[in-house]
């Protein structure tokens, strides 16, 4: 069985850099972008290797600030 394919989008300006999403990703692709800060002054959460995303929604489930929207390939 092929792995599910997913995609996450970050509404970056809402992010407070709390890092909870980084603890919930089963494929460990959610990271904090230490090179940038958002309008609130935090390093925002981001994903570098989106091709690994399985669209499980865990990151969005634990995010307290409604930063993340998740898409998944449906067959």
């Amino acid at each position, binding site marked *: 069985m092929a792995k599910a394919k997913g995609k996450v989008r970050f509404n970056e300006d809402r992010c407070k850099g709390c890092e909870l999403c980084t603890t919930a990703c089963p494929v460990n692709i959610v990271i904090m972008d230490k090179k940038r800060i958002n309008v609130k002054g*935090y390093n925002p959460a981001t994903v570098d290797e989106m091709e690994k995303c399985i669209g499980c929604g865990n990151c*969005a*489930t634990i995010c*307290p600030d409604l930063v993340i929207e998740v898409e*998944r390939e449906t067959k």
Partner: protein
Amino acid sequence: MAVVFKKTEGLTDKQFHYCPGCTHGIIHRLVGEVLEELEVVGKAIGVAPVGCSVLAYDYFNCDMHEAAHGRAPAVATGIKRILPDNVVFTYQGDGDLASIGTAEIIHAAHRAEKFTTIFVNNAIYGMTGGQMAPTTLIGQKSTTSQAGRDAATTGMPLRMSEMFATIDGAVFVERVSVHDVAHIRKAKKAIKKAFEVQLEGKGFGIVEVLSTCPTNWGIAPVESLTWLKENMIPYYPLGNFRTPEEGK
């Protein structure tokens, strides 16, 4: 690709004022999602407390009523008795519900008021600056228990759900946690059930949600999740304390 997770219609677009990593935001979202899934956003009237979630009236996308400290269950009683076909809920913290508002919440349960209470227990007063709550753990430091809570002078932490389980009118009582994804999903199920019990007119329902307060605990957000799991859950065991029998 289809969107499988987006902001619920049960919440407004307003950004939460909560501190980074505070799990109030998760609990707000779960309530909003449940209201949307049960198709009751338009029928809902929420009652906001005093405390960190005092501004909850700006976040839920339904009619809202801001109560005085601890009085949300009395306000909700007034609303629900007049509008029995609406869906009424209170959202209260531990200072609000377990300290200043104990009389109001106990008697709302005692009268089997048909509304739903979301009780957020983070073992501390957040908004006022980290003072000791009735739910603060033994040894836990707060700005009014600086050497750690001492049982000899301040008593043992109050277990509210266990107390509700002794009140006949409280037909749904469950304690949940939001420290990881699996528990967040369980918490949502409990919140949904509590609202369903209201829709079925069975009595009072309450979900106690163990929550974090990274700022006043003085622990980073991710470590706060671990602290909750290792310190709060052993004293405040998760689980269902009361559920209406099916088919009754």
